[in-house]
């Protein structure tokens, strides 16, 4: 607890408080804009915070990641458009509440859910992550290699019904990570004598391209501004009071969100929908759900806010991202020299506990901002795309350029932007590619180390119990998406 108290002291320094407030505010703005999720927001911010202290930069990024979910709930309630997929369940009752003149109440519930769900989730993260990390200290090169393979296969499987495409994208990412100096023999690979990629494909430029540039191109395709705001009436504080009148749903939804968050590969959108369905199931008036029932907003928002810290448990302790946003956050941590995994609590305790403390405080800040500025923030959705798109492009490409003051870096970002765009149009998501690029060096190093230990025998990859479990989980993650439909066909056939 001493470390955590020190971390809170560190976060309360003025520059870290400013980073926390800036990250929270920017995250809400990013969340408010439909089409710009936490991934694009983090990619957009990396260049701006590159020169900061790693702990301060991660405080900014963590706050951004956490608060973007709340921003998405504003547009879900006011505009009937979720800022992010995680707010999909909030629409079901949030917008009908707004239409019934209870928009303020819904926003109050959403802000209180960010506070309560986020706080419960953070308490779990603070206690569970070191426990997971202690367990992972048993890991050797083979286990690390298999953990990375499991992470890649889980993220690949997230692409619904298209595991093969996810794996292909992950393979491309891993292959791109081999460009430049070989980590084992120091040999130059696939550079074609082009100096800017001799040290490998720069991660920041690739991240900016895959997320910010690709998203800007997607936004450029859709005309006009994002939305028209609905009229807002009803008291925010009435929303907060309504929230605390349902303690049982509050606890149920928090625990459900946490559980879904810890499960790798299941995102916040599932948490929100599951909690909404659960609240409807146990309600005495299930017929009111979907027609502006405050408990529906309460359940979905509490679960999504509790889900994000749960998501970070495996990401930080094992280097195993549980969702799309967590995969990008993993990349961001590596960019700032904080390599997630069991040793991170020994090597960088001040950074990790500062991040935890910051995420803890972010919940309170979101509540304060939500109760005071929610309506004004949603006005951002009225900005036309012809202003938002160049703004995203200028800020992201300028950040890419400013790292080495080289226009070649802009070209690398544009190339990844084009790749990300073509992938999207071809039904591929760029997330596994990014994860392959991020984990590539670690995967290759541990692959060679494991083979060196075993004298070249591949049996080392299934020698220990942990290896066997990891291999089993990898196989399950790959065949899992096909088992459901197969089982359904089988049982229907019997009938």
């Amino acid at each position: 607890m001493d470390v955590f108290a020190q971390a809170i002291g560190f976060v309360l320094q003025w520059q870290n408080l400013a980073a926390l407030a800036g990250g929270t505010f920017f995250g809400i703005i990013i969340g408010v804009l439909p089409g710009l999720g936490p991934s694009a927001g983090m990619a957009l911010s990396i260049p701006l915070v590159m020169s900061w202290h790693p702990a301060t930069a991660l405080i900014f990024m963590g706050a951004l990641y956490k608060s973007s979910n709340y921003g998405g709930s504003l547009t879900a309630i006011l505009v009937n458009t979720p800022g992010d997929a995680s707010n999909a369940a909030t629409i079901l009752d949030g917008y009908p509440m707004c239409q019934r003149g209870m928009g303020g109440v819904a926003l109050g519930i959403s802000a209180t859910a960010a506070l309560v769900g986020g706080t419960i989730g953070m308490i779990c993260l603070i206690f569970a992550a070191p426990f997971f990390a202690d367990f992972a200290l048993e890991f050797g090169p083979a286990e690390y290699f298999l953990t990375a393979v499991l992470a890649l296969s889980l993220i690949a499987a997230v692409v619904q019904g298209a595991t093969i495409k996810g794996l292909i994208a992950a393979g491309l990412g891993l292959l791109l990570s081999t460009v430049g100096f070989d980590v084992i023999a120091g040999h130059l690979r696939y550079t074609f004598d082009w100096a800017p990629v001799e040290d490998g494909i720069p991660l920041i430029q690739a991240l900016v391209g895959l997320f910010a540039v690709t998203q800007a191109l997607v936004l450029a395709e859709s005309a006009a501004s994002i939305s028209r705001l609905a009229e807002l009436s009803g008291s925010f504080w009435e929303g907060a009071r309504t929230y605390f009148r349902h303690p049982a749903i509050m606890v149920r939804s928090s625990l459900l969100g946490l559980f879904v968050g810890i499960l790798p590969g299941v995102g916040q959108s599932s948490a929100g929908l599951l909690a909404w369905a659960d609240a409807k199931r146990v309600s005495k008036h299930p017929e009111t759900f979907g027609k502006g029932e405050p408990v529906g907003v309460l359940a979905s928002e509490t679960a999504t806010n509790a889900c994000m810290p749960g998501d970070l448990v495996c990401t930080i302790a094992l280097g195993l991202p549980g969702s799309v946003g967590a995969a990008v956050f993993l990349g961001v941590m590596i960019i700032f020299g904080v390599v997630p995994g069991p040793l991170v609590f020994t090597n960088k305790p001040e950074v990790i506990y500062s991040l935890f403390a910051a995420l803890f405080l972010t919940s309170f800040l979101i509540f304060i901002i939500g109760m005071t500025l929610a309506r004004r923030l949603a006005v951002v959705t009225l900005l036309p795309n012809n202003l938002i798109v160049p703004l995203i492009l200028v800020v992201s490409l300028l950040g890419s350029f400013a790292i080495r003051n080289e226009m070649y870096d802009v070209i690398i970002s544009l190339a990844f932007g084009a790749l990300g765009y073509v992938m999207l149009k071809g039904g591929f998501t760029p997330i596994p590619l990014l994860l392959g690029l991020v984990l590539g060096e670690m995967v290759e190093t541990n692959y060679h180390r494991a083979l060196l230990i075993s004298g070249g025998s591949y049996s080392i990859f299934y020698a220990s119990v942990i290896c066997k479990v990891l291999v089993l989980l990898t196989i399950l993650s790959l065949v899992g998406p096909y088992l459901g439909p197969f089982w359904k066909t089988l049982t229907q056939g019997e009938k």
Partner: protein
Amino acid sequence: MKEKLKSTEVWFKIVLLFVFSGFFILAIPYPQESRQFPQLLAAISLILTVAALAIDFLRAQVIAGEIGDVDDTELKVVDMATRMARRLRFHRAWAILLVSTGAGFLGGFLFSTVLLFGGFGLVFGQRENLVKNMTVAVVMTVLVYFVFGRIMAVPMVNGVLW
């Protein structure tokens, strides 16, 4: 068969076949430790791509869907008219991007900034708002120059011309 070859997904997979083959072939002259990992990856990726293509061609029809957002993972089917309109806007956006990057090479990133804001305002903004859009472009460029060029000391006017 012809319909399937029109799909972006199928074309992308065919291109990937060449990319993965390239990674495999280019690694042949590398030392054993340097080539082992990329060749293993390229071989696995190649097999998966062939399998994915085979599924596409064996399936009755290819789903003409696309993912609409980088944070999304769900395929959405878009009608042809919407797709054509989007494609036009996409080509225009790329034209602005390429011209602004070229200008950045020649005169520095400040020129890219002007052309990005001005270009998007001109091509994507409504005609009746032209003056307003151009004013916004100039104001944003000055703002970007002040924040990045003056405060953060990023060389905004370093190009090959000077």
